[in-house]
């Protein structure tokens, strides 16, 4: 009984956990500008800095979801502006393929989102975060790899169907 009430409480207060991979040259700087401009956004996002959005291996995104997080954002420079000329194009292509894989595996592809944010777009980054948080919140918790209370990440899809 106690455990059930606890879970109900958790479900009511549930906030999505989102990890954002931001490229060091544009999106990370854009997120900094959001801060310098004192624009607020929800505290659901944790930021992981990478040199380029092209550095993001789809395995990172899958690992993030397997670790129990509810959503992933990958953000890079606008097309044509990549500091390394073409990394953001690589990211976009990989992302398109990953989207198909997620659908196939049974993860709602809307949990993984992609954006272009330049170093001058502090307000855009805040908008992107707001949208991602709202979208992922609407999808509910990441049940497929839901972490049991205080334990290790779920071993695989089979156990999530209990």
């Amino acid at each position, binding site marked *: 009984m106690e455990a059930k009430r606890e879970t109900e409480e958790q479900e009511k207060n549930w906030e999505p*956990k989102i990890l954002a991979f931001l490229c060091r040259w544009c999106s990370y700087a854009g997120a900094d500008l959001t801060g310098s401009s*004192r624009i607020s956004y929800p505290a659901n996002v944790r930021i992981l800095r*990478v040199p380029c959005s*092209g*550095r993001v*291996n789809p395995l990172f995104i899958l690992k993030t979801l397997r670790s129990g997080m509810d959503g992933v954002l990958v953000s890079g420079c606008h097309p044509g502006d990549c500091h390394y000329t073409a990394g953001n194009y690589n990211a976009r292509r990989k992302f398109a393929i990953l989207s198909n894989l997620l659908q196939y595996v049974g993860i709602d592809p809307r949990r993984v989102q992609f954006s272009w944010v330049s170093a001058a777009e502090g307000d855009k980054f805040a908008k992107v975060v707001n949208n991602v948080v709202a979208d992922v919140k609407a999808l509910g918790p990441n049940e497929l790899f839901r972490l049991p209370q205080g334990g290790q990440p779920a071993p695989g899809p089979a156990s999530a169907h209990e």
Partner: protein
Amino acid sequence: MARIGVFVCHCGTNIARTVDVKYVAEEMSKEKGVIISRDYKYMCSDPGQNIIKEYIRLYKLDRVVVASCSPLLHERTFQNTVKEEGLNPYLMEMANIREQCSWVHKDRAEATLKAIELIKMSLAKVRMNEPLFPKRTPMERKALVIGGGISGMQAALDIAMVGHPVILVERAPSIGGRMAQFDKTFPTLDCAACILTPKMVDVRSNPNIRILTYSEVESVEGYVGNFEVKIRKKARSVDMSKCTGCGECMQKCPSRVDSEFDLGLGKRKAIYIPFPQAVPNVPVIDRTHCRFFTQGKCKVCQKVCPAEAINYEQTDEIISEKIGAIVAATGFDLSDPNDYSEYGGGRYKDVINGLQFERMINASGPTEGHLKRPSDGKEPKTIVFIQCVGSRDENLGRPYCSKMCCMYTAKHAILTKEHIPDAQVYVFYIDIRAAGKNYEEFVRRAIEQYGANYLRGRVSRIFEKNGKLIVRGADTLLRSQVEIEADMVVLATALVARSDAVKVAQMLGIPYDQNRFFTEMHPKLAPVENVTAGIYLTGACQAPKDIPDSVASASGASVKVCALFANEELISDPMTAQVNPALCSLCKTCVDLCPFSAIVEEEVKRPDGRTQKQMRVIDGVCHGCGACVASCRSGAITLKGYTDQQIFSEIESLASSF
């Protein structure tokens, strides 16, 4: 086992107002490997940095995490701090709890919890950090400048002045470039040759510059600091060491050929120098028009040469040079006015382009400075200039503005009135782009002082009638059509990339845009550099440019070359990719992906004596973007400073927080 120090900054109240920094520092001391964790008001200040140094000493720390502002701001600061205490700077990580935490969240509990998680991410990463050391590769501190026009010469002079040897390659028989073809230059109306020739003499007399004219770059191999360049010295058929420049050969040569320098308006000989002030003042034989080479006859030049300098047996010579940096100064061509059949399409001899006008009005040109109609040699009394012929034209796939034409047309208008004071001068324009220093005043002079008639409108047709050229156009300000009976029409054609620009770009391994201009590293902040390390851009080959901007870009490119040459060795950022040959299958997916061509295949000798192919990342060229790492199917390539293991551990650290 790592010994980590965590330093949580208040940043005054910027962080402390929203994040409970004391609590955070306390919580972090419980983390695995953290020996000491404390907070401080201003971590980046001198006393703050001294605390870090003191703690490294006191607690024998081998990893440091600073939780403060954005690393984009202070990463270098704290890297230097730990370096000063003897710790490798890449063993320091920063957690951004200001710009990406305290400044964007209002709830104290949420912000504090997030700060803790962000620091845990940094801790997870720093535990996996390894010391990184900048790689030093030997470098050949010699520059190659391709193109002997004004920007190429300026670049060569600037680099040579600092003391580095420069090879200046020019494919024409003389240096000087386009500027040698001009009569006067805007906005000062300086005589072009008068300001150009002293520079040419400077180049010739500079001991650090080796000029190779009538030469072309054949191939470029290697990478920054270590280019292998092959240059073809075309056979002049004249021995440069013997020729005195007396000019007898040119006087006596019986062949007359259309002069490229005069754009077909005049003739030159088969043995020639392009213009009187040529550097070097040594002629070349145009073997395609020389009677000896085409028919086996003549040989007059050899007979009359007092220095016995003519050598018909000369052959092209290909030399190899080791080069550290290359400056591309290959310049521009002009578009074909015959693109516009409505302007005659080349049928009318008296419709010429701007450069032909320059040659005509130049005292050492084909008409000795007199404006003459090419058709009958008469002096024109009514001259019509048309701007934007070929530029700003989407239909031709040339939407850009050529930048110089408004100015040189105004100059031509002024020069016409100076030569023929009673001439009627009309200029058809769309806009007037006179943005440079004293440029607007110059155009105003053409209109107000010299009486040039500026008509805002385009010309729809030019046709001949009774020996005159009828120019039919619009005057949009008067809202009427106009027809002018002109004696001569001058078209301001577009500045275009050289016909072999793509070949040159591919040889150098540099990108070019849809207009075949070479692409700069960044349109705003790096206009003279290139994504390909060691290649620099100057002059009109990068974009339409006038003389002042060409000279400025040349000096800009030179300082970049000199900065590269400032150290004896090439010191590269250590956050580069690295191949583990044991895992690599030589699929070369990484090679195709790398925007900098930093990955090469090499033959390596094994201990048993056999050779084996291996992929290697050239540290000096790799920019550390990680595109290769994200695509390697074998996991054979890794990015130092952002390895898969580091990133996975950051992700995992968040999992255990939920």
